[in-house]
């Protein structure tokens, strides 16, 4: 029982709990807050896995920007609680059973077939550092990087176009 393992188990439990909390919350705001917590937990996991840059990006982009945006919209749209659905009664049990099957398959893969086992080597010290990431981004993956910036531009334009109100409407 090393410290790492204990930390992992605790954090894992938190992650799963917050995920479940997001799933089952009545209120959308609560769900968003649970998700923020989840993202934070995952960021800690990233740190444990020698990905400090990604961890920081997770916190600032995901938990900071994306979730805030979510909360904005939740506030905008109102937070009424939806009544139970009248359509598709067969869907809930089917979905649950499917999820269980999916989970079962994954577990089967991992623990019966031992898909992802093996020794984990020790990485070099600077693995995952911002310098490394930066170097990779600006040399080998320059094209995807630039395209991503175009993508962001498109997203911005799209968001504006979708939501702009014509004068006189």
């Amino acid at each position, binding site marked *: 029982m090393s410290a790492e393992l204990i930390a992992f188990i605790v954090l894992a439990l938190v992650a799963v709990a917050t995920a479940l909390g997001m799933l089952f919350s009545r209120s959308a705001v609560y769900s968003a807050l649970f998700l923020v917590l989840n993202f934070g937990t995952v960021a800690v996991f990233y740190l444990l896995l020698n990905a400090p840059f990604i961890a920081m990006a997770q916190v600032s982009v995901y938990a900071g920007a994306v979730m805030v945006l979510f909360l904005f919209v939740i506030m905008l749209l109102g937070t009424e609680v939806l009544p139970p659905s009248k359509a598709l009664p067969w869907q809930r049990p089917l979905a649950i059973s499917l999820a269980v099957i999916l989970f079962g398959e994954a577990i089967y893969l991992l623990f019966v077939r031992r898909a*992802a086992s093996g020794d984990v080597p020790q990485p070099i010290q600077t693995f995952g550092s911002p310098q490394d990431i930066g170097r990779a981004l600006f040399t080998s993956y320059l094209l995807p990087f630039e395209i991503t910036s175009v993508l962001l531009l498109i997203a911005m334009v799209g968001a504006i176009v979708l*939501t702009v109100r014509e004068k006189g409407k």
Partner: protein
Amino acid sequence: MVPVTYYVALSAVLFTIGALGVLIRRNPLIIFMSIELMLNAANLAFIVFARLYSLLEGQIFVFFVMTVAAAEVAVGLALIVTIFRTRHSINIDDMNSLKG
């Protein structure tokens, strides 16, 4: 370190929960958030394998995934806002005009 299997199992659990959320919840915002959860779970798996094989590519990929996810959230939320303006409802079951 913690065996990779546990991490991947965790990723699977989170993914499953996210999938369940997509299927069961009727608030589009919750559904969107569940999608983000699923993306996150995948990201976790990527990072774990990057660590396993000492390949930076995993992390680069996660970077791009995050960027794309952010862009997608922006557009998606704009869509939801627009839909809400016309239908005045955030029940995804009410948006069934693509019915065949």
